[in-house]
């Protein structure tokens, strides 16, 4: 959301292009195609073929076609690759713990032990509507029968939190993916945990773990108002002198420096909160004495000035409209589920596709001018002008 008022006047694509500069070309750049048709010459320029290179080439030319013979194949009696099934859990607790925040407790319907987890881990819930949402686990990892999460209601969000608040009830079943951890707690000796609003959820188990291990820790929780902040009592009960709270209505929005005020040399900072808060902490980090900054990275960067355009798979292929608020990669993956991707931010190059026609707006930091000129495109961030059609190799 950029807050610009919508104009009704039909306008030309006069908006500033978000095109980024190409990555610099290096001598050893990816664009240099090495000759792989002729065996490489000797390392030291002697006029003879390289014996080692010749030997490995011969070996591989014999070895590869032998694949699939007995002993050189997968034993057909072994079981086929299997997928780990998601969990089917039942809601055993659903209660308000702060303004607009409900706490959910989930358990196995037959009371079995749940897969273990460590502080910082999250669950992916698949809601009855089909929406999928991540929530950090905020209970005690030692409790192997119950998962606890807390969800703030976001009135103008995608509807997932409203569904949890209004439609889920005690006894309802939910499909849940096993815990994964994108914010692992490393237990450094000196810790500063910085939470903004509902961002307290992953930090609460970290605080408990730090206390259990006898580490030197401090937690700052910033929120809109005291009534909007969950788990305050639980934190106070844990170690009253190690937690501090600040509210926007009393003290105003905290600056990055204020949030990092308790950092000392060697402190490891763990930060979870709204994007502007994380940005403020990142900006203030270099000036603070802290040594390390941990935060959870959330895949895709927000789309700025996105315009709707169209992708076409092959010259004769299907046309896929890309709305202003979705990435070309998201749309493409629906049509080609096996398309690889990784960073969602235009720096790793994994999702690279080949352009056949159309004028793209490159927004990546990865491709060189030569690669762009030859039609390479990173659909995770790159787009096109309104109404443009990008024809991709299928």
């Amino acid at each position, binding site marked *: 959301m950029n807050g610009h008022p919508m104009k009704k006047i039909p306008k030309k694509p006069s908006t500033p292009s978000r095109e980024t500069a190409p990555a610099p070309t290096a001598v*050893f750049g990816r664009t240099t195609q090495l000759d*792989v048709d002729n065996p490489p010459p000797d*390392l030291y320029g002697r006029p003879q073929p390289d014996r080692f*290179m010749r030997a490995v080439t011969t070996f591989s030319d014999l070895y590869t076609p032998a694949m699939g013979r007995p002993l050189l194949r997968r034993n057909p009696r072994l079981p086929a690759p299997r*997928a780990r099934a998601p969990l089917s859990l039942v809601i055993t607790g659903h209660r308000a713990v702060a303004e607009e925040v409900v706490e959910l407790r989930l358990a196995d319907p037959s009371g079995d032990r749940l897969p273990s987890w460590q502080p910082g881990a999250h669950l992916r819930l698949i809601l009855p509507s089909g929406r999928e949402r991540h929530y950090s686990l905020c209970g005690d990892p030692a409790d192997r029968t119950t998962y606890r999460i807390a969800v703030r209601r976001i009135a103008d969000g995608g509807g997932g939190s409203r569904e949890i608040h209004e439609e889920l009830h005690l006894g309802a079943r939910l499909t849940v993916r096993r815990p*994964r951890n994108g914010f692992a707690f490393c237990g450094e000796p000196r810790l500063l945990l910085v939470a903004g609003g509902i961002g307290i959820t992953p930090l609460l188990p970290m605080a408990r773990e730090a206390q259990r291990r006898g580490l030197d820790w401090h937690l700052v929780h910033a929120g809109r108002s005291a009534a909007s902040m969950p788990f305050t009592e639980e934190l106070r009960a844990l170690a009253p002198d190690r937690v501090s709270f600040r509210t926007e209505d009393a003290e105003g929005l905290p600056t990055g420096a204020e949030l990092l005020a308790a950092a000392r040399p060697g402190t490891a900072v763990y930060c979870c909160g709204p994007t502007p808060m994380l940005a403020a902490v990142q900006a203030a980090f270099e000036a603070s004495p802290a040594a390390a900054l941990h935060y959870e*990275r959330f895949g895709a960067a927000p789309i700025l000035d996105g315009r709707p355009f169209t992708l076409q798979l092959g010259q004769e292929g299907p046309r896929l409209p890309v709305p202003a608020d979705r990435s070309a990669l998201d749309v493409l993956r629906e049509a080609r589920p096996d398309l690889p991707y990784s960073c969602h931010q235009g720096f790793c190059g994994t999702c690279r596709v080949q352009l056949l026609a159309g004028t793209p707006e490159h927004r990546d930091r990865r491709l060189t001018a030569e690669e762009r000129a030859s039609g390479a495109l990173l659909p995770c961030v790159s787009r096109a002008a309104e109404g443009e059609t990008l024809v991709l190799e299928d």
Partner: protein
Amino acid sequence: MPRTAPEVHADLVLEPRDVTFDWSGLPLHWIPDEPLATHTINVLHLLLPEGERWFIKVFKDALPLITDEQLREEVLGFIGQESIHAEAHQEVLDHLLAQGLDPRPYVRQIAWLFQRVLGEKPKLGPRQRRENIIERVAFVAAIEHFTAFLGNWALNSPGLDRAEADPTMLDLLRWHGAEEVEHRSVAFDLMTHLDPGYLRRVRGMAVSGPLLVHLWVRGVRFLLAADPTLDGRIVPTWRKALDISRRGLLPEPMASLRSGLRYLRRGYHPTQEGSSAQALSYLASSPAARAAAR
């Protein structure tokens, strides 16, 4: 580096991290007065860009064979991380060239090795192609055992600090090493997902292990001969390498060999080696990762 509790972090979400290195101040012998140690580690820069691009190719080919969603996500994270590694090491090659050490003859051979010798072969039937993909995943899994071993060594190598090695290069080695420790299970888990057979694992190590050692020795000889400041004065020997490793500038050859043998133990799993907590702790403080995040 802070000492952290040695616990196993399972089920980590893997995502590539962007990094920025400034190589303008890197001396040719970035461990001062230690050309042999410097060039032994420099072999990494010769092998990795092509090697990691090959990993990516193999793993992309393996994606359609994966039936577990979590493993698939881990493989995608692995691909993204390896792609950033390849680029970072590539930059060092340009720097070597600018300083008069031309690595191209060796890189040319490595490109042939990974693209032609270990690359995709034409005219394979669907079953052979599938077996060939799994076989190459087993090669990657064995190599990843060594990259995790080396990464763990780089994170615990006070000898390099004592020798006043260049801080940017140390950050490259430790950032890369930390991500290798972080994602050390992915290739092994992918291999056992596609083929749980013990023979596949053994073959992976039997091919990759000796090949890697031989490429390394060749690489050290090549770099010492190509270094314009040395005029071929230094001839590498195992005795010298042993001396240097005793001073903490290289992993000990015997420890490396023992590590390779551990891979063949029945109950082996990559999580038994190295500490994710230490690796993630380094990644949260790495200057290159912080420079790119700004």
